[in-house]
């Protein structure tokens, strides 16, 4: 069973993203993963994420975006979370900016884990209460608690 709360660390949570534009936000979250030594090959990972981003709107609406990729740069399922008060345009179908952004990386061969993580996260974030709690969380530790409780 995949657990979102086990694939993310407190240090991988950015409550006040500096970047304001989609690619810059993705780069900011990727660099968080790199700083944590979770991703070895930043260039490959970024290219894999942006390739998908160019084809899909990973903004799933309701103020949420989940940029994601299966990549050779990841050796396990990894997540980072960023929050933007202003919101970022992730080309969501509903046209609304994304405030809650989860970046997902998974190894190429772990397709089922990757799909399950995406599905689980999407399901969690459809709940208004969940989005509100994540929007108001004061610390990364609180975000972790919210994710654990939701699972």
């Amino acid at each position, binding site marked *: 069973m995949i657990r979102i709360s086990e694939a993310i660390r407190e240090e991988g949570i950015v409550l006040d993203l500096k970047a304001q534009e989609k690619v810059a936000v993705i780069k900011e979250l990727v660099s968080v993963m790199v700083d944590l030594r979770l991703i070895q090959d930043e260039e490959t990972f970024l290219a894999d994420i942006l390739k*998908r981003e160019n*084809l*899909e*709107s990973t903004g*799933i*609406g309701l103020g949420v975006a989940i940029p994601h990729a299966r990549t050779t740069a990841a050796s396990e399922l990894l997540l980072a979370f960023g929050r933007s008060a202003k919101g970022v345009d992730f080309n969501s*179908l509903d046209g609304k900016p994304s405030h809650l952004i989860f970046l997902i990386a998974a190894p190429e061969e772990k*397709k089922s884990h990757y*799909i*399950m993580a*995406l*599905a*689980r996260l*999407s*399901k969690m974030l*459809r709940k208004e209460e969940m989005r509100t709690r994540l929007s108001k969380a004061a610390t990364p530790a609180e975000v972790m608690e919210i994710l654990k409780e939701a699972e």
Partner: protein
Amino acid sequence: MYRRLLCYVEAGETRLEELEGVLDLASQLQSRLIVLAVLPEESPDPSEEEKQERDILEDRTWNFLYEIEDVAFGRELKISLMLEEGKPEETIASVVKSYEVDLCATFPYKGLDAELLLQKLGSTPLLFFNQEGR
């Protein structure tokens, strides 16, 4: 001409292979494919059993949507996923209108009233695919 192609799917009722025809069509038309699934509206006071069933259905549906996305990505198709709640015919028509969909596709699901859907879609063309994906 067909910038946006909407495909309505029901998880558990369609196999991934059956979507080949829809993916081919989106590829040929160079359309953005919007894959829509619709969950029934939650009852106001659901029992624990109903909550569990719904939870499983939603899990299964998201899994199916992301499976489709993964295949579409492999074909370099532009794709968006949507999961909504309500009655399928009304929700499909509402999404078609809201997102300026040019063409609709689906499968002959038992729970889908084709006549009602056609009526609600108005002038938007609707294609039904069979189990062979044709």
